[in-house]
């Protein structure tokens, strides 16, 4: 039997498995952590601001609004985009894979976007694509975690996120909020890509991130301040 088929096939061996129905009653601990005791999920799966984990409309309202009907994804997937792997040690579905897919798409889209310059008069451009932009600060920072993190914050997308900071008293960048917000935004792109396909996901990036010019403005400010 091949390995991959085992879990999928789920062959029940009735002669081996016991026919007795077992029920378990587990004590769920409340209060501070005690080694070896399972904690009550009511208490654990709550963010610092007191948002309870779940697909409540309060939690995913902002994201639903941002996605609009055109790019809508299911509530569960929205919640997964909002959940970082640090939340509950990854026991809830989290956005790591979606982020990986989304970040690759955003990187690719921005690379295509900045070189697409049909009116350039640079002689080393190939087929109307100016490759001198690649590697410049603006090209690199456009999809960076700082620009996207600030974008998410300005649009109120990161007001509810399920994650755990090592220290949430320090500022936006150092606490990891910036990184987690950027990851959340990229995971959203990944989710739209998975649900609606690549073409729609690219429209999403164009319409929601670029067309208002907000992301570019943020990036320009970041680059200008760094110099």
């Amino acid at each position, binding site marked *: 039997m091949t390995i991959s088929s085992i879990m999928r096939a789920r062959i029940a061996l009735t002669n081996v498995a016991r026919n007795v129905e077992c029920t378990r009653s587990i004590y769920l601990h409340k209060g501070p952590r005690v080694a070896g005791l399972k904690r009550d999920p009511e208490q654990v799966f709550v963010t610092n601001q007191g948002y309870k984990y779940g697909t409540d409309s309060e939690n995913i309202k902002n994201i639903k609004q941002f996605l609009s009907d055109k790019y809508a994804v299911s509530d569960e997937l929205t919640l997964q985009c909002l959940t970082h792997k640090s939340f509950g040690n990854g026991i809830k579905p989290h956005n790591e894979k979606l982020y*990986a897919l989304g970040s690759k798409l955003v990187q690719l889209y921005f690379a295509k976007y900045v070189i697409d310059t049909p009116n350039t008069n640079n002689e080393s451009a*190939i087929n109307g694509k100016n490759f001198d932009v690649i590697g410049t600060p603006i090209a690199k920072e456009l999809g960076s975690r700082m620009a996207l993190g600030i974008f998410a914050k300005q649009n109120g997308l990161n007001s509810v996120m399920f994650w755990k900071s090592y220290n949430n008293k320090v500022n936006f960048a150092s606490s990891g909020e910036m990184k987690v917000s950027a990851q959340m935004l990229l995971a959203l792109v990944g989710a739209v890509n998975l649900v609606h396909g690549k073409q729609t996901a690219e429209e999403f990036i164009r319409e929601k991130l670029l067309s208002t010019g907000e992301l570019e403005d943020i990036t320009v400010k970041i680059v200008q301040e760094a110099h």
Partner: protein
Amino acid sequence: MLRQVIKRTAAKNISLVRTSGYVASRSYHVTKFDSRLKTEYQLLTDYSSYKHTIYTHRLPESTAEQCPLLIALHSRLNLPKEYQLSTLSQALNMQQFGSDGLANNFGLSTLGKNLLSYYTCEYLVMQYPRLPMAVHNTAVDAYMGKLTLAEIGKSWGIEVDTVSKLQHFLSQEPEAMKYGRLRFQLEEEKNTVKEDGVYELSQVEMESVDTNNEFIPKEIEAYASAVQAVIGGLYTHVGENATKAFIHDHILSRKLPVDKMFQFSKPTRELVRLCDKLGFTDPVELRLIAETGRLSAHAVYVAGAFVGKEKLGEGVGSSLKEAKTRAVVNALMGYYLYSPIDQDGNEPKLPSEAGYVFEEASVGGGDVAI
């Protein structure tokens, strides 16, 4: 025409929330301009105005056409007619910008890398949505890591330009031949005497040696960047669909030994956590299914990992412990290497394909920490 589609509304009066506070953070470094390139631009976001003012030019197409190496490479890779030979030559140039007056492959190879990353990631996510992130990254590396790309570059029959100017002159080789080879060595490096089996690090390489990471010779890097740049050039000339087909034909058609990429440290704990994550109410149990008999010359045990009446995995070992561990690993592998199929039983389409339909199964829940 990405830029033309975008209707730029007047930038809203956005004040960055304490931007200076973010930028000054120690945990984040903003990219700076490379001063050697002397890049000039009119406006930061006017991408067409960017220009490196250091003297470089592209190889004229007429010169590239003189080079049989380029023509052969072009037809060996079955590249379309629109793909210019001068771009192919530029893809093989990894010299420092401006050192030989020709445009190098930096931009092309960065674009190619982005294309490769996306299509590899998309393919892996759709093939194995539940693959743990560590293994996913290893798999991406197996497809498009530098060593793999360099191997592909070599299999394309790309030659390295090791001929110095003097040797070039003495052998009466046509000038254009040089433009069909992989150029990354400096003129003085070419003149150093080489000993077979000994790799001498150049000054630049000595400085960039990172003792924490595996050392990658410059030749490997050059080959890898050339392969990426060829892919970037393909996008530039014929667009994304052809590039995607090229990536699937040349890179994703390789055999990926993904089932050999797992290194478990605490498999039983992991399975218990995983079942917890999946919301199974019954506990994980490891049971003996069969054995040859403890007193047999070479005892063999078959153990199974069960949740309630469902068997998750099965393992054979010469001791109970071995059989149990193998059963657990088998169960985990069965979960992680799951590949979804669509309703008609076919391989699901990729998001970049026309007619793509979303399947719930292609979203993985992510791995658990233990």
